[in-house]
């Protein structure tokens, strides 16, 4: 399956296949950005409060190490599924 086929499949599943290309891209990009933001929040929320404070002041490399320690495919799938479901709900 090519990337284009996958994109079409995603658009169909989101019921966005009939929109103009520019609109499709804008929505998909923002939705992906929202998944990343929710992932960020999920990791922060899982941290003890004192570590949350520290994370806010960390430079990129140090923050990356903390994220890396807490990220896993299970969490990514769970968050991505949740954000997409929330998007569909808001579309109704």
């Amino acid at each position, binding site marked *: 399956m090519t990337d284009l086929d996958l994109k079409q499949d995603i658009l169909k599943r989101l019921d966005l296949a009939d929109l103009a290309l520019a609109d499709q891209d804008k929505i998909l990009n923002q939705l992906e950005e929202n998944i990343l933001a929710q992932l960020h929040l999920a990791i922060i929320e899982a941290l003890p409060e004192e570590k949350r404070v520290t994370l*806010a002041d960390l430079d990129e490399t140090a923050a990356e190490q903390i994220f890396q320690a807490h990220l896993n495919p299970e969490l990514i799938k769970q968050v*991505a599924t949740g954000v997409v479901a929330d998007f569909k709900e808001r579309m109704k």
Partner: protein
Amino acid sequence: MENLNLEATVESKVFRALAAVENQRLNLETKGKALGVTLRTKILRSLTAGLVAGASLLEMGCGAKEVLSSDTQTPHQEDRFERAERKMDQEQAERDKVRTFLKDQGFEVKDSDTIGFQKLNGQLSLITVNGQEVWKDSNNQKPLVQFEQGPTGQQPAPEQKTNPDAANFL
């Protein structure tokens, strides 16, 4: 008129979709502020790419691409696969029992022969070998199939004329 309606529907969907992602973004930003953090999605973008076996976040979110490594199986998927595996094992075990039963009855059954069977109320009621009916349960008032030759060319044993009790065989 119909085209105008269609355009209006699509236009309304664009607005709803754009509003949906924008509201989501604002909501997340507000949550981030409440937690005292600035969202660093750029770092996460590169980190997630290496963790989801080539699938994009949207593919995962929509279920457009199932990532089937053991790390990413949902409990539901695991359950489904385990059930299918158990069923296959059970069917194979039953087929092996039927094969042994046929051999005990004097039929020569090769490993390459395809054994089929039916159960009635949990009891063996019919056996086929390579699609040919070779045995029926007389307890269910069905006659025992008489053979000139066994399914692989061997004569069945003479005592085969009476049907062995198949109750609770499986």
